[in-house]
């Protein structure tokens, strides 16, 4: 992106905005995990739009499935999202007071995992950067409101509840102050907020019933609330960034002159793997499929269509794993969604159903013999043991209708934007998270299929984030899993370079000085004939010329030599012309000098001398005249 921005630039600072959006999204969407100090917990697809002159005119960012569970819960040794630590450490005492922000150590959401600092990361300094970028891109008012909402999310985690022992719950008196602060921060009605923290609404035979929740349900609902607010805030920040990047212009421009950059969470294997890892790894399977399809299938198809002989090679695709996950009837996601419609859903029954529906996929799916809640998926990048516990609950895009109403009625514009009143508050069958994710991924795949892809395969050299350490076994695993070895094989057997005949002719006609126009296959053959090279290495298909890396190197070198020769020729011609002009001037001046000498008057001599000053050579007559 930095390169694109620097090279392309823009007339409206668009490239700066594009670069500045990244610290904002990073602080809100990245966190420390065991594996990675700055792990992206969301997927990002950025489109950068160019005009005819190659200048950046607009941008658009699409975000994918932020890991919202992190807001209320982190594994040991991990942190919550960076932004929380940044505001606690980076804001002035005065501002902290204004926003009711405490120290990191005073928040339950930030201390549960007992990890609050990352080695080598200065949250205070990073906040300065984030804050500056926010003011420029989101406006100062939005930044102010964003901090208020973040502060409220943290405080929601601090509310303490009391179990009334009768299936009802109340807010601890010591938390009254917290609740009041949250209401002020979010500009919402405090009484309603209190009421709906511990009760839920259900509809029975047409009428609405407000009933109490027990402590467990209350806790769940509270975490659900903070996660929902944070998730929506994140999405809103993305759309604010898009507004500033003029994404609407981008969408309208039918030319689709864009470069898309995809940065999506990498394949994950943890000790305990749940719904989050399942979703992340699913996304990676989709990308892997695209890669396999692109490198192998597309390549073969092109040769076939263009009538070129080639050697077929065997490769593994991951279609079985994808069927297991996303098949419309027997896939894990579909079965997971079915479970949502059953009132008393159970994780165990879900797993049985998945197993029964996928008897034919033993190669990629198995259940643990020891633990009945565990199952294994043999992903392309390794086997992952998942625990089904919590899948059903995490898949719900839950939110209580009443609490949404409270937030809808907020007097703060940003909160209103997070909870638009147009949104249906009734219990309409909301789509599950996995369902939404599947749809998003499929739409991304459609977009990708329409583009010409460039792949960057990132590899980590060791597990300890340590520089200078190279673990060959770990690297080999990644090389195998990402199909790099197989890719190399197919590329070597195939013809990685291909050009349309007219493009080829345009680029390489300089190689043949006798080339006389035309850009058909015939013309290309003519160009090739001039080369002192085994031209049978170039495969001429119906529409394209195909060749290998060595051939590309050869012809590029030939082109450079020819271009240099041509440049010398052009330089020669120019220099000859310049010399001729000078010669003519000198001859003319010689006559003037002679005339002045014979004239002898001081005025004429001076005028003649002046004329001679600008010439590059001093001729004999000039000296005599002097």
């Amino acid at each position, binding site marked *: 992106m930095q390169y694109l921005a620097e090279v392309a630039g823009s007339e409206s600072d668009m490239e700066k905005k594009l670069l500045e959006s990244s610290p904002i999204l990073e602080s809100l969407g990245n966190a420390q995990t065991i594996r990675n100090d700055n792990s992206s917990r969301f997927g990002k697809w950025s489109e950068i739009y160019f005009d005819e002159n190659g200048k950046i005119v607009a941008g658009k960012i699409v975000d994918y499935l932020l890991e919202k569970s992190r807001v209320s819960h982190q594994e040991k040794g991990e942190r919550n999202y960076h932004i929380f630590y940044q505001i606690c450490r980076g804001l002035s005492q005065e501002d902290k007071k204004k926003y009711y922000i405490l120290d990191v150590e005073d928040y339950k959401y930030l201390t549960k995992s007992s990890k609050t600092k990352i080695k080598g990361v200065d949250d205070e300094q990073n906040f300065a950067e984030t804050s500056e970028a926010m003011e420029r891109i989101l406006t100062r008012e939005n930044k102010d409101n964003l901090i208020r909402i973040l502060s409220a999310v943290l405080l929601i985690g601090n509310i303490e509840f009391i179990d009334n022992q009768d299936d009802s719950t109340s807010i601890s008196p010591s938390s009254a102050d917290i609740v009041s602060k949250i209401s002020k921060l979010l500009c919402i009605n405090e009484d309603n907020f209190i009421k709906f923290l511990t009760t839920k609404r259900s509809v029975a035979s047409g009428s609405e019933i407000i009933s109490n929740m027990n402590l467990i349900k209350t806790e769940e609902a509270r975490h659900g609330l903070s996660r929902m607010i944070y998730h929506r805030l994140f999405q809103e920040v993305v759309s604010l960034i898009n507004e500033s990047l003029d994404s609407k212009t981008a969408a309208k421009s039918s030319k689709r002159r864009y470069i898309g950059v995809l940065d999506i969470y990498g394949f994950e294997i943890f000790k305990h793997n749940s719904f989050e890892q399942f979703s992340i790894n699913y996304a990676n399977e989709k990308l892997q499929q695209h890669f396999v399809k692109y490198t192998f299938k597309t390549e073969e198809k092109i040769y076939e269509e263009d009538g070129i002989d080639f050697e077929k090679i065997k490769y593994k695709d991951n279609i079985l794993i994808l069927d297991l996950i996303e098949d419309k009837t027997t896939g894990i996601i579909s079965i997971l969604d079915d479970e949502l419609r059953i009132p008393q859903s159970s994780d165990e029954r879900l797993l049985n159903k998945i197993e029964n529906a996928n008897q034919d996929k033993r190669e990629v799916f198995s259940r643990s013999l020891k633990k009945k809640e565990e199952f294994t998926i043999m992903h392309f990048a390794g086997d992952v043991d998942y625990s089904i516990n919590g899948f059903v609950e995490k898949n719900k895009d839950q939110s209580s209708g009443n609490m949404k109403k409270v937030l809808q009625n907020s007097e703060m514009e940003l909160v209103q934007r997070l909870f638009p009143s147009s949104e249906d508050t009734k219990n309409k069958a909301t789509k599950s998270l996995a369902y939404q994710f599947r749809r998003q991924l499929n739409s991304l795949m459609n977009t990708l299929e329409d583009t010409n892809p460039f792949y960057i395969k990132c590899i980590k050299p060791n597990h300890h984030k340590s520089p200078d350490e190279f673990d060959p076994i770990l690297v080999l695993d990644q*090389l195998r899993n990402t199909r790099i070895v197989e890719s190399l094989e197919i590329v070597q057997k195939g013809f990685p370079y291909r050009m349309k005949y007219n493009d080829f002719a345009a680029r390489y006609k300089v190689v043949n000085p006798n080339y006389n126009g035309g850009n058909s296959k015939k013309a290309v053959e003519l160009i090739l004939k001039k080369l002192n090279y085994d031209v049978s290495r170039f495969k001429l298909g119906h529409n394209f010329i195909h060749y290998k890396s060595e051939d590309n190197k050869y012809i590029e070198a030939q082109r450079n030599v020819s271009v240099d020769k041509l440049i010398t020729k052009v330089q020669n011609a120019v220099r000859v012309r310049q010399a001729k002009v000078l010669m003519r001037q000198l001859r003319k001046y010689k006559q003037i000098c002679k005339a002045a000498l014979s004239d002898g008057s001081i005025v004429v001599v001076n005028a003649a001398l002046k004329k001679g000053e600008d010439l590059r050579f001093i001729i004999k007559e000039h000296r005599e005249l002097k």
Partner: protein
Amino acid sequence: MFTISEKMHKKSIKFSKKSLQNYVHDLLMLDESNEANILYNIKNRFSKKRIYTRLGKILISVNPYKLYPVYTPDVVEKYQNARTVNQLPPHIYEVAKGAIEELIMTKHPQSILIAGESGSGKTEACKQ
């Protein structure tokens, strides 16, 4: 954690004498395209602070877990002015350059797909 046992891995990593001596920019130039050669090539490059390796159009990037001075403005300029990218060592800028050129030439949308495990340097690659 992985299906293939580590023992098997160790067995399969046998380097030919030749592979120990040097390395190539592009894996396509390897005399023999076996796993060991690929791995050793990448390892050799990594130890010489060369984190990028090319495989035709695919760029392989190994996370150095520290910042090398390979993203300075003059490097940008170097890649920007290169007549063909193959003249220069593999770099993430080369991919970006390729995408821009292809976009201008074909007027067809381009994409840069950054893949890898968590912690392999995708986000950093994206920013550059």
